[in-house]
């Protein structure tokens, strides 16, 4: 095989070498492999190998400590349907995802629409809206624990001032999950605003102006022209936020540890608990593969459904 660029190895034609050896020592092969090997080895050891090992582990019994990991066949997978806590975890994950994803998208779109105009100081407003991207999940969780503190928190104070009933929030099995929805929506707002604002800036002004001249009302213009043109951003956000919602962990670990009464136990928290606190690593690996499949299926459905209404402005 000749080298790709005519200038590459003409100086020393490898005439005497033959066969496989020649193919590998041809300059581009050797240089190419030399360039990709360090990254490839690292990704193979810490990315690829764990993916396969995890599959193997899901057919074994392992406590992460003893070296013996006996094969148990499909036992781990068979155990999943009868696991009542896992069923609860799925329910909570679905409730969380169904609330979190649309709420973040609506908040992000409204703020992005407000920020998509030429006003003096707009870059300051935009920076303020983006800033939650820099706030870690742990910072966010501690702040919201304080805002929703039952006895001294600001949220109860505001409700009290308005004459509304106060809540126990993260200490209440009926409310804790919704507080986690609120804090994560806030945490992801900056991200959603960036996506929607970039998309809004790509919408051609001429279409909206033409519709306005024809007498269309602002909301009609938004509904029939702007929003359809934003559909690639909407689809992307729906997919990306869903993937992250299904993997919710940090906030739950920090604020409630899955409680009270399992009311915030979500799938990844349960998986973490099984692997690293109950030491059922084989079972946790099986759960992880089920989660992986669910994410794949949901993403696939979102793209199939999404592509039916997405307009690509090409």
């Amino acid at each position, binding site marked *: 095989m000749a*080298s*790709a*660029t005519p*200038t590459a190895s003409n100086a020393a034609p490898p005439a005497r070498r033959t066969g496989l050896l020649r193919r*590998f020592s041809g300059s*581009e092969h050797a*240089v190419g*492999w030399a*360039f*990709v090997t*360090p*990254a*490839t080895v*690292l*990704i193979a*050891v*810490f990315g690829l*190998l*764990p*993916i396969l*090992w*995890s599959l193997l*582990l899901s057919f074994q019994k392992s406590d*992460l400590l003893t070296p013996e990991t006996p094969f148990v066949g499909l036992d781990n997978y068979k155990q999943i349907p009868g696991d009542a806590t896992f069923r609860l975890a799925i329910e909570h994950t679905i409730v969380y995802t169904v609330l979190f994803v649309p709420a973040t998208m609506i908040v992000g779109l409204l703020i992005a629409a*407000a*920020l998509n*105009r030429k*006003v*003096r100081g*707009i870059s300051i*407003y935009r920076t*303020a809206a*983006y800033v939650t*991207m*820099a*706030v*870690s*999940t*742990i*910072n966010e969780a*501690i*702040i919201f624990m*304080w805002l929703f*503190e039952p*006895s*001294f928190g600001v949220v109860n*104070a505001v409700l*009290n001032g308005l004459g509304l009933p106060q809540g126990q929030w993260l200490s209440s099995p009926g409310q804790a999950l919704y507080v986690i929805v609120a804090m994560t929506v806030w945490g992801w707002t900056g*991200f959603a605003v*960036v*996506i929607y604002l*970039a998309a809004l800036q790509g919408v051609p002004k001429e279409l909206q102006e033409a519709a306005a001249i024809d007498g269309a009302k602002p909301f009609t213009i938004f509904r029939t022209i702007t929003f359809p043109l934003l559909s690639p951003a909407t689809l*992307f956000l729906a997919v990306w936020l869903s993937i*992250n919602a299904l993997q919710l962990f*940090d906030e739950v*670990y*920090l604020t409630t540890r899955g409680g009270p009464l399992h009311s915030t136990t979500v799938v990844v928290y349960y998986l*973490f608990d099984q692997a690293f606190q109950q030491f059922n690593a084989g079972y946790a*690996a099986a759960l*992880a593969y089920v989660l992986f499949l669910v994410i794949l299926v949901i993403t696939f459905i979102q793209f199939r459904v999404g592509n039916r209404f997405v307009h690509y402005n090409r």
Partner: protein
Amino acid sequence: MTTSTTATAPAEPRFRFTRPSPWHLVLIPLTFILLVPLIWMVITSLETEAETRQFPPVLLPASPQWTNYPDALSAAPFLRFMLNSAVVALVVVVANLVLCSLAGYAFARLRFLGRGALFAVLMATLMVPFQVTMIPEFLIVKWVGLNVWDQLGIDHLGALIAPNLATAFGIFLLRQFFLTIPVELEEAARIDGTSRLGVLFKIVLPLSLPAMATLAALTFLDSWNSFLWPLIVINTESNMTLPLGLTTFQGSHATHWELLMAGNVFSLLPMLLVFFAAQRYFVRSVAATGLKG
């Protein structure tokens, strides 16, 4: 500019006073509501313990308790946490820039045996969520710590660094960018006898600074805010990164909200500074690739 033009039509003053847009009436409250959690964090960090225990809450502390900050810093080794976070993040960012640009360049420009297949396999790992890989990753890192280094185990900064030195995402990002650079620029240098490595470092990378900055910003954010993996591998306080250290601090000072908020502000500051300095790279990278750490 001549005097005659200024006489007939006065030049635009630098700061022209125009009536403020009514949109400020929407934007100011909106921004305020978004920032309330952060504002409240700062206010609480300056209150006395007694002030945090009043209902309705004290809106402005009688006198700002700046001592809460040194108190929080002495209650937990926050500087150590921050140093650990910085070491891990810097090593990971530099390693990703070097290793991913090498691999990304090879995938973009060099024709080598197995290129397509290798690229496809690496990209496939991007689809798999971390929860699938974390258990074997734990076992592998522990094994390496015990066998390759003498009884190092897993409870050390190396365990936070090693798995993240190179990412398939970084390779993909840089490869896509390298493909947009005209190949003619490199060919001229190749004719002059520059090696591939020389071409990469002298010609391609200087043209790729925006992509490199994007990768650096995303990798830094990801590393700095990472929580689940440090939670799994680190037990010793002196090896904790900020998110993990803050979590243990929260566990032991759960009711001292003024100290918690001071620690929170302190841990948030470096990331905020980086964010303001590199805002356009964060914004561009998120808008372009749609990733958050």
